[in-house]
C-alpha cells in the first residue's frame, strides 16, 4: 500500500471519557482527505495524537508504511508532518522570511543568512503559487497572508503531510478560494493534506475523501464524489439535518425600526456608513448583505447604540432613539446578538447566570436597584438554560467553559429574554457547526413569527438567502439595492461588489 500516513485503531482516553475510539484514518500522497465532525467529535484530539501532543492509549501510526511513535511536535516535523493551527503561531514583529525559517535558520557563521532565507522562501512560494513578500512584517499582513506563511513554514521544514485545522474559519470568501488553489498545487506536487472542517460545502469542493467522526468514533469514510451536503450532515450529526430553513412566508406588520440618512464613522474617524436608510417591519427578517468592511458592522453598532451617529435618525416604534446609548436601545426594544461573542457578547470569566443578567442586572427583575438578587439571577439562568438547551454547564459555570455553539445559545437566550421589538443578529452562526446553526436559524425564524423585526447581518451567501425575507445590499456604506431571497448568487455578488451602483449610475 502506498499510504503516506496510516492511523490504525487509535484510542485516546481522558479518564472515563473516550475522545477517540479505535479510529482509523489514512492519507495517500497527493490527496486531500477531509476530517469532518461537530465540535467535540474528536477531530482535534486525533490530530494532536498525530502531531505528538498526545500519546495514544491504543493504536498504531505508520508513516510511509513504517510504524512510528511520535512523542513531540519536533518528532512529527522530522517525519514530514506539518500542522497549520487555527490560531497562528507567528512572531508578529518579525518578517515573513524570518518567521518561516525560525528554528531552522540558514546561518552564515553565527549570524542569520538573510539572503539565503529570502531565496529559500521565494523559491518555495513560487513553486506552490503562494505569493508572499518575504520582507513584510507579519503584523502588517492580512490573516490570509499569515496563513500562507504558516503553510510555507511547514513546507520549509519538509512537510509532505500537511494538517490544516479549520483553515477557512478566519478567511474571507476570496481568501478561501486562493487557499484552495494553493492546496491544488500542493496536491499536484504529491503532498498529502488533512483538511479539518465542519463546513460541508468546502469539504465537497476541495477534498477527495471524507472521514466523518462523531463522538470519538469513525462513522464512515466516503469519497466526495457522489456525496452531498445532506448526506455528510446526516453522517456528522447522526440524524437528518435541515440545511435549508423551512419557514412560512413572512407576514410583516408595522415598521419597528426606521433608519434614515444614517452617517457613521469608523474607528479612525473616516465615514463608514454614508447616508443609509432602511426600514424593518415586525414579523420579517431583513438581511444586510455585503462584503466584509463595507460599513455593515458600523451600521449595526450605530443601531444598537454602541457607536455615535454623525447625522441621521434611528427610530424604534416611532420614537427617536438616535444616540441613546446601548442601554437606551435595549430598554426601548433593540436587542443585539453581537458579531464577536468573545470580545463583546460575553464576559468569559463571568458565570452563565451573570452573563444572562448582563442586560437586566439593574432592573427590578434581578435586583432591588442596589443589591443583586443572586437567587433570581440563578433561577432565571436555570430557566433560560433549559429553554435554549444550553449544554455543558449550569448557572454557576463560567462562560469560557462552554463550546462555541452553547456560548452563542447563551447570548441568544439573553437577547431574546429582553423581549425586544427588534433583534439585530450580527453573524449569528459564525464558527458554529451544523447542529448549532440549525438551532440558531430555527430560533430566528420563530422569533420572526412571534412578531419581532429581525435585522440579520451576515457574510454568508447561503445564510442570507435561506433566512431573509428581504435582502439589502450594502456597499461602501450605502444601501445599493434590495433583493428578494430567491435572487441568484451572481446577481447578489455583483451588487455586493458595487456593480449595482454602477449600473444605476449608467441608467
Amino acid at each position, binding site marked *: 500500500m502506498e499510504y503516506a500516513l496510516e492511523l490504525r485503531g487509535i484510542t485516546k482516553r481522558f479518564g472515563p471519557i473516550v475522545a477517540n475510539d479505535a479510529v482509523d484514518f489514512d492519507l495517500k500522497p497527493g490527496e486531500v482527505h477531509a476530517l469532518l465532525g461537530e465540535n467535540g467529535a474528536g477531530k482535534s484530539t486525533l490530530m494532536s495524537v498525530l502531531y505528538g501532543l498526545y500519546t495514544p492509549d491504543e493504536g498504531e501510526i505508520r508513516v510511509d508504511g513504517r510504524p512510528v511513535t511520535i512523542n513531540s511536535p519536533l518528532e512529527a516535523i522530522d517525519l514530514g508532518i506539518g500542522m497549520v493551527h487555527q*490560531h497562528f503561531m507567528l512572531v508578529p514583529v518579525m518578517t515573513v522570511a524570518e518567521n518561516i525559517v525560525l528554528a531552522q535558520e540558514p546561518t552564515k557563521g553565527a549570524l542569520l543568512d538573510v539572503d539565503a532565507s529570502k531565496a529559500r522562501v521565494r523559491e518555495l512560494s513560487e513553486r506552490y503559487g503562494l505569493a508572499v513578500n518575504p520582507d513584510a512584517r507579519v503584523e502588517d499582513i492580512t490573516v490570509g497572508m499569515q496563513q500562507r506563511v504558516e503553510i510555507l513554514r511547514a513546507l520549509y521544514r519538509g512537510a509532505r503531510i500537511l494538517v490544516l485545522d479549520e483553515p477557512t474559519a478566519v478567511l474571507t470568501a476570496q481568501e478561501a478560494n486562493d487557499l484552495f488553489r494553493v492546496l491544488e498545487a500542493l496536491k499536484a506536487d504529491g503532498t498529502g493534506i488533512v483538511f479539518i472542517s465542519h463546513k460541508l460545502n468546502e469539504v465537497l469542493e476541495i477534498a477527495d475523501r471524507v472521514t466523518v467522526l462523531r463522538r470519538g468514533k469513525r462513522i464512515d469514510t466516503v469519497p466526495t464524489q457522489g456525496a452531498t451536503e445532506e448526506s455528510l450532515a446526516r453522517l456528522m450529526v447522526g440524524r437528518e439535518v435541515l440545511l435549508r430553513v423551512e419557514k412560512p412566508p413572512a407576514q410583516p406588520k408595522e415598521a419597528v425600526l426606521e433608519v434614515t440618512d444614517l452617517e457613521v464613522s469608523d474607528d479612525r474617524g473616516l465615514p463608514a456608513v454614508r447616508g443609509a436608510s432602511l426600514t424593518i417591519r415586525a414579523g420579517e427578517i431583513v438581511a444586510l448583505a455585503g462584503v466584509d468592511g463595507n460599513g455593515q458592522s458600523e451600521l449595526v453598532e450605530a443601531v444598537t*447604540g*454602541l457607536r455615535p451617529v454623525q447625522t441621521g435618525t434611528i427610530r424604534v416604534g416611532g420614537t427617536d432613539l438616535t444616540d441613546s446609548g446601548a442601554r437606551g436601545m435595549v430598554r426601548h426594544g433593540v436587542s443585539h446578538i*453581537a458579531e464577536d461573542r468573545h470580545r463583546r457578547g460575553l464576559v468569559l470569566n463571568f458565570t452563565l447566570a451573570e452573563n444572562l443578567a448582563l442586560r437586566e442586572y439593574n432592573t427590578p427583575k434581578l435586583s432591588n436597584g442596589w443589591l443583586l438578587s443572586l437567587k433570581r439571577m440563578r433561577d432565571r439562568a436555570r430557566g433560560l438554560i433549559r429553554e435554549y438547551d444550553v449544554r455543558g454547564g449550569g448557572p454557576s459555570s463560567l462562560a*469560557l467553559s462552554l463550546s462555541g455553539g452553547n456560548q452563542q445559545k447563551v447570548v441568544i437566550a439573553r437577547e431574546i429574554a429582553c423581549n425586544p421589538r427588534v433583534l439585530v443578529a450580527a453573524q449569528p452562526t459564525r464558527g458554529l457547526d451544523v447542529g448549532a446553526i440549525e438551532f440558531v436559524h430555527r430560533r430566528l425564524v420563530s422569533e420572526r413569527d412571534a412578531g419581532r423585526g429581525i435585522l440579520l447581518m451576515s457574510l454568508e451567501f447561503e445564510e442570507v438567502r435561506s433566512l431573509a425575507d428581504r435582502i439589502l445590499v450594502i456597499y461602501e456604506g450605502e444601501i445599493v439595492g434590495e433583493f428578494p431571497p430567491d435572487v441568484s448568487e451572481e446577481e447578489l455578488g455583483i451588487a455586493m461588489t458595487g456593480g449595482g451602483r454602477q449600473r444605476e449610475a449608467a441608467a
Partner: protein
Amino acid sequence: MSTELEPQPGEVEGEEIAEGYAQTPAARLAAYFDGGGVLVPVLTAVLAFFVGGLVILITGHNPLSTYKAIFNGSGLNWIFPWVSGSERTTAALNLQQTLIITVPLILTGLAVAFAFRCGLFNIGGLGQYLVGGYIAVWVGSSFAGMPSVLHIIFAIVAGTLGGAAWAGIAGLLKATVGAHEVISTIMLNWIAVWLGAYLFALNGPLQNTDPSQQSVPISNDIVAGAKLPVFWGDPELQGLHIGIFIALAAVVVFWLVLNRSTTGYEVRAVGFNPEAARYGGINVSWNYFLVMAVCGAFAGLAGTLDLLGWQFHIATNDVLNSASGGLAFFGIAVALLGRNTASGTVIAALLFGALLSGTSQRNLDPNIFEPELAGNLTFIIQGLVVLIVSADVIVLTMLRRGRSMFKRRSATAPAAKAEAS
C-alpha cells in the same frame, strides 16, 4: 449513546480558552487564579519564604530559628495557651503591634484589590494614604471643643473623602482623556509626598503652633478627644485601637459591594471585558472614576486610622521616608498575595503585618538574628511575592507540570482538552 463527549466544562479546557482571550489584566489575573485556586497564593508565599530562607542561610544564620524568632517577635505565639508569664505579656505587646500595622495593610490592600477587579492598577496607595492622613491630622488637631465621637467620625469621614478625591483625580484623567492610571497615580504619590513636606515644614501652613516646638517640622498633635479608643493593652504603650474593627468592616463592605451589588457587577464586568460591559449598557468611564475614588477612600481611611490610632502627628521626615518603602506600598503585595479577594486580603495583611513587626528592632531577638538585617528580609520577601505573582508563569508552570504528572498517573482528569477550540 451517552452525551459524555460533549465538551466538558473541565478546568483544563477553561484555562486553554481563557489564555486565548484574556486581554485585560483582570482577565489575565482571573485565568491565573482560576488555574490554581487557593493553592497558588500559598505556593507563592512558601516559595518567597523559601528563597528568603536561602538569603538567611547565606548570611550565616539558621533559617528555621530565625523564622521562629520572627514568629515570636510578631506576637503570634500569643495564641498558644502554653505561653505564660512574662513571655505572654511580651507576646501580647508584640501582637498588638502586629495588629496595629495590619490595619493599614488591610486597607491599602483593598485599595489595590478593588482597582484590580476593575482592570486598573492602583500604585497610588501611598499618596492616597498620605492625603487622608494630612486631612485627618488637621481635623483631629483642630476643633478641640467637639464631642469625642463626633470629632472622630468627622476626622474619619474627612480623611476618607480626601483619599477618595486624590485617587479620583487619576480616575477622572483615565475616564476623560485616557491617561494611564499607573503613571498618574505614581505622579500623584510624589505630589502628595512633597505637599506633606511643604505643609508641615518650618513655617509651613500646618506646622505645629506649640511655641516650644517651632524649630521642629511637625504637625500639631491630635487632640485627646479625636484619638481612637484603645481596647487592648495600655494606651500609653501603643495598645490596639478600635481601627481594626473599622478595617474589618471595610473588608465586609468591599465584599458586599463587589459580589452582591449592581455596582460590583459593573466593576467586575468592566474588569474582565470592558467591551462586553459597554455592550451591556455599562458606563465604563464612570466605573473607572468610581473605582479609583473607592480605592482612594480605602487608602485614605488607612492613613486616617493610623493618625487617629497611634501616630497622632505627622513629621516631614516621616512623609519623606514613606516615599521609599512606606507601609502603603505593601498594599500591592497584600492584594496580589490575597488574590484581590476580601478574605485573602485580610490573611495576606496579617502575614505582612506579622513579618514587619516580627522583624522590627524592638521585637526580634537580637541573639538569633540582627534586627538591622531582618527588617530588610521583610522587604526581600515582599519583593519576592510581587515578583513571583507578576511572573505568574513560574507558579502556573510548576502547577501544570505537577498536575499533568498527576493526571498521567491517575488518568481521571477531565478530557476534551483538544476539542476546546
